């Protein structure tokens, strides 16, 4: 199995000049790719057996001013998980869909668009709401969104008097 892992690394290095890999646990490989490389890399991964896209998710790195997209792939023959990561600009979050490579990503892209505001060119459904029906405020999973203030404004907090018992053995 380590053989297939080093084989995979060699292939990625040879075709896409990716040299930095992380292996946090056995059978899991993490690597970053450039924005313009991502579709090629994913198509290549699919062709060598990574037939399943387990998840597309997004991380908001507010200090670096970028959204990181994480594509989690799995190969059922060798059992390897691969996490392919890429970064998009946070101020103008736009990327291309990979619907033609992994059709199931349609819903994950809707999810990411809904919670982070990343637009996926080519996915016609990506503007529809998936979880938050009739949502009007800012994207809720962004780091600069304040959920408590939103909750107080929209749903109201219940006002009540709190009484705590006096400390036993205190003054």
């Amino acid at each position, binding site marked *: 199995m380590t053989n297939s892992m080093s084989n995979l690394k060699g292939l990625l290095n040879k075709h896409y000049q990716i040299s930095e890999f992380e292996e946090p646990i056995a059978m899991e490989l993490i690597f970053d790719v450039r924005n313009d490389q991502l579709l090629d890399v994913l198509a290549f991964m699919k062709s060598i057996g990574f037939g399943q896209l387990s998840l597309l998710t997004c991380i908001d790195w507010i200090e670096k001013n970028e959204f990181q997209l994480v594509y989690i792939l799995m190969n059922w023959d060798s059992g390897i998980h691969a996490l392919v990561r890429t970064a998009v600009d946070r101020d103008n979050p736009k990327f291309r869909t990979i619907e033609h490579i992994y059709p199931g990503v349609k819903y994950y892209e809707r999810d990411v668009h809904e919670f982070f505001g990343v637009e996926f060119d080519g996915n016609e459904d990506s503007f529809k709401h998936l979880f*938050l*029906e*009739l949502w009007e405020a800012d994207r*809720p999973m962004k780091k600069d969104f304040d*959920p408590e203030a*939103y*909750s107080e404004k929209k*749903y*109201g907090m*219940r006002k009540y008097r709190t009484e705590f018992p006096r400390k036993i053995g205190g003054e």
Partner: protein
Amino acid sequence: MAIGDKVEIKAWEKLGDFFRGRSIWMMWYCTGCGAIEMPPTMTSRFDMERLGMGPMATPRQADILLITGYLSVKTLRRVIYSYEQMQDPKYIVAFGSCTINGGIYFDSYATINKLDDYLPIDMYIAGCMPRPEAIMNAFNELQVKIRNNEVDGWKRYKKNYDQYKANQMKAVGEVFVHDEFHE
């Protein structure tokens, strides 16, 4: 005495409440984690049916809407939908601290904090989570209250309908449920 006289209706209502209080059919809307307390309440360990309450499958046949736990806005829309399908008299029992003040989800963008803004609550069961004993105790009290004709949530809902509707609109925008797969 004419048919529909006030006294007669009241007597009929009292009779109805007498029987109603002894056979409560509830529909639980398992929205949150509280639903996990219902199976032990229902099944052989605590066996709530011996106390005169049973599960019901549809809102149109149920007397009680039991809301177990936190409600996201999306769920609230469906709860209101279900509640308005139910026939009078109907009661709501709110279960767990999330329905009272938001519980641990008080600062969530997706869940409401005060359920009684949107629907009339007849009884709260506090706790996170309430034990099956607390549920049965609450239902016993509710049965006594129904028999004494003290529960009037559905009447309050009719009386203050505009106010409730305004609150609902503020939180959910629109009560009608859209479904992209069936429209």
